[in-house]
């Protein structure tokens, strides 16, 4: 007997390739979205800093835009620079 597979319909979940599961700022899952977004993924992407920490882009932007003297990574307190 020989089995010929004609077509395969599978199911998968997508994941951000990141060290943590949750955003350090909003505490929501990376695979979810920040507190202001509705749709995860394309509409609420992650960004990485040069310190290798990552956040929902909307979360880190809110932090960087809040009135403060220096722009630091919320986790390691190094100067925040976006990873190219």
């Amino acid at each position, binding site marked *: 007997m020989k089995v010929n597979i004609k077509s395969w319909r599978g199911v998968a979940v997508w994941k951000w390739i990141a060290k943590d599961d949750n955003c*350090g*700022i*909003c*505490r*929501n899952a990376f695979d979810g979205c*920040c*507190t202001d977004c509705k749709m995860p993924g394309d509409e609420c992407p992650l960004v990485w800093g040069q310190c290798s920490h990552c956040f929902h882009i909307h*979360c880190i932007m809110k*932090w960087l835009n*809040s009135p403060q003297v220096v722009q630091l990574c919320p986790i390691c307190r190094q100067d925040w620079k976006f990873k190219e």
Partner: protein
Amino acid sequence: MASMQKRLQRELKSIQTEPPPGVSINQNSVGSSLTQWIVDMEGASGTLYEGEKFQLQFKFSSKYPFDSPEVTFIGPNIPIHPHVYSNGHICLSILTEDWSPALSVQSVCLSIVSMLSSCTEKKRPPDNSLYVKTCSKNPKKTKWWYHDEKV
């Protein structure tokens, strides 16, 4: 407002399910808007504050976690500590200029516990009486001059 509540909701849930040692949330104090919490705290064993009970009050603005919470000791027992004024105000840099949105109620509590635990002599800050007379009600309005970085 909504995003602040969502985050606090998460924090509340996690602190309820896995409270850090010596810290517990006073459930009745947490209103539906979540803007104010009271945390019960016990002095860690083997420290100067062993057996003592304190209460910490957290007030959150709508900008939380991008804005730090207002944290003070309240109630009958204000710990006698070089960084804690007798009106309950705490001189702790993470509560003002060193605040980061990655911090949380839990991490603030842990910092305060560790601040108390590392104390070697129970005494009020040197400028206590002057400060208490002149300060604003909100400790965040004080321009702190941090006494030392070690404690």
